């Protein structure tokens, strides 16, 4: 692993005090980030415009999962797919990696991370196998992404992590599934899993919610946060009989609400939500199922299924001025408006699980 050259970094800081630092506008103001794969089997991180055109394309050393965009600087953190042990910080202006983060000994990343409101700290979800609990790693984005601390995630198998708007409250999806770092993906505790949603401020869990005991095999996996701090969560069902729901919403301190879906539509999602997003106006929630090749749109106020759209191997989803933008493993980039799904572009890059709004 190449560590950033320390002198180069210091020089960078000196220069930064003299000239204006680049912003996202300087790299063409991408609206989204997504990891993907090229036909030759190599992996990339891409910036996309609001019209879903590829703005830049930066090589990644391995298959990516999600990315985190720095709130101010044109800097993206690309996470290796679980159970990866590295994350790479990329300067989106130059396309160069500027820092590497390696998970501490015995840990692995789960593929998601988020920045503090001021962009000084990066938080990553990690597995501490020996202790049998999830951890949140803290990295100093002002000092070459040095590891500066960590705290408990509030459960086993933390996957997605987001920050509530305008404040430094983190929300973590503790999926509840214990995996061993050697194999990383073998599930060890399905019989006893207990997923939860944990809210954390300054390293302390201030609120944690579990679903009803009969839903204990519904692994809370992916999160989306609305403007008012409402948290939408997508689940992956590990049980035998059908789940009652795969999507829920929650506001800190309150009781979670599972969204209603007719049984046949629910079954078509094959127990698996790949990604979730809340629309800009907060009125709709979109979830994707790559296994079912479907997007479900729920009304946030009604809590019921409002529309179903088909797209093969669809996974990435994010809010878009039209409604939602979605990406697929077939290379399609689409938008979902009031009533219909429209293909905006199709290209040689096949898109990985998550489309991240900047």
């Amino acid at each position, binding site marked *: 692993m190449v560590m950033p050259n320390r002198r180069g970094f210091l020089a960078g800081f000196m220069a930064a005090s003299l000239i204006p630092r680049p912003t996202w506008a300087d790299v063409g103001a991408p609206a989204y980030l997504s990891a993907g794969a090229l036909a030759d089997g190599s992996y990339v991180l891409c910036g996309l415009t609001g019209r879903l055109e590829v703005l830049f394309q930066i090589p990644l050393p391995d298959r990516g999962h999600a990315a985190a965009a720095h709130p101010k600087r044109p800097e993206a953190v690309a996470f290796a797919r679980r159970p990866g042990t590295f994350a790479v910080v990329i300067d989106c202006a130059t396309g160069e990696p500027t820092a590497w983060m390696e998970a501490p000994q015995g840990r692995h990343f789960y593929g998601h991370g988020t920045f503090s409101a001021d962009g000084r700290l990066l938080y990553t979800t990690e597995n501490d196998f020996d202790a049998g609990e999830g951890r949140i790693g803290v990295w100093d984005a002002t000092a070459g992404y040095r590891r500066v601390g960590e705290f408990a995630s509030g459960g086993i198998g933390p996957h997605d992590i987001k920050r509530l708007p305008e404040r430094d409250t983190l929300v973590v999806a503790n999926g509840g599934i214990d995996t061993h770092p*050697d194999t990383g993906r073998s599930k060890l505790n399905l019989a006893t899993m207990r997923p939860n949603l944990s809210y954390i401020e300054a390293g302390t869990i201030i609120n944690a919610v579990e679903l009803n005991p009969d839903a204990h095999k519904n692994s809370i996996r992916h999160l989306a946060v609305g403007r008012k701090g409402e948290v939408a969560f997508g689940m992956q069902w590990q049980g035998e009989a059908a789940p009652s729901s795969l999507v829920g919403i929650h506001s800190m301190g309150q009781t979670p609400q599972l969204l209603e879906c007719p049984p046949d539509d629910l079954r078509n999602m094959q127990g698996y939500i790949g990604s979730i997003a809340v629309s800009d106006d907060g009125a709709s929630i979109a979830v994707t199922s790559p296994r079912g090749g479907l997007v479900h749109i729920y009304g946030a106020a009604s809590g019921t299924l409002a529309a179903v759209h088909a797209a093969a191997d669809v996974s990435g989803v994010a809010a878009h001025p039209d409604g939602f933008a979605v990406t697929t493993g077939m290379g399609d980039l689409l938008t979902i408006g009031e009533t219909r799904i429209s293909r905006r572009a199709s290209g040689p890059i096949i898109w990985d699980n998550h489309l991240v709004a900047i």
Partner: protein
Amino acid sequence: MRHMLFTILATVAPVTGFAEQDPRVAHIVQDHILPRFETLADASDTLANSARAECTATSDALRAAYFDAFDAWVSASHLRFGPTEIENRAFALAFWPDSRGATPKGLRQIISARDPVAMSASDYQEVSIAARGFYALEYLLFDEGIRALGDETYRCTLTQTITADIAAMSHAIEDDWRTDYAAQLLSPSGDGHYRSDDEALQELLKALSAGLQFTGDTRIGRPLGSFTKPRPKRAEAWRSGRSARHVALSLQSLNELSRMLAGTDEGLSRKLGEEFTRASTQLTGLNDPVFASITEPRGRLRLEVVQQSVGRIRTLVREALGPALGVAAGFNSMDGD
């Protein structure tokens, strides 16, 4: 075949219609799934009877019955849907991998406290699933620490109870298959567990893929550990010398299932057979029942080669068998993240 199919429909399923059936599902239910759970139930009965007759850990008859019943479970262990998942039966029969040593910990607590829960198989259903099933029994029969713990009479009773519990669960699985679940797979319906033959075939394909993943990543991957730190003591059932045997048995079962899924596509069936034979031959060539040789670079490399062969089968299943069954091999849909 026609005749057998008719028999099974007549015995397990009220025939509700004459919809065109995919012959592969019936073939797999009749000739792959039901015989396996029948063998498991029979072998578990023999195991429980052996323990009742002679319960000392060194009893040849008991150990032989343990080997046979464990073989039967491993040969069915990829069929993780429906009856095996009710009340966590599969986990309670086979709690492995046990990364934190919950099985020996649970057994030590029960034996040290002379917990009366071991007096009856029905009470024993209440203990931690880690202290039930084949892996718990392996400790009682083969682990020196557990075999020296507490008093022999209590351990004897515990052995009898655990084997009776295994037999009860195995019968429950077989009964559910015969009285309900075979019909569910064979007769998809709008409000049934499977709505179409496609969904039934997808379930079977998923069992094949998950079985290959478990054998490659876990049965082989766990002992491999990392290059600098191989972990032979993480191999499955090494105490009773069964690690490589489990890989071999699972490959045999998965081979059969994959060929039945390939159906009349003879080219694909032959290709699958060749890949499975390659993996099995490499495994036999290791001649290393508990993967002890992986601490040496040469031995490790040879087990890695077996793992790679399992990986090739997975690729073939994903890229050829899946599409042949109408299941697209998506970049995201097969990812599971």
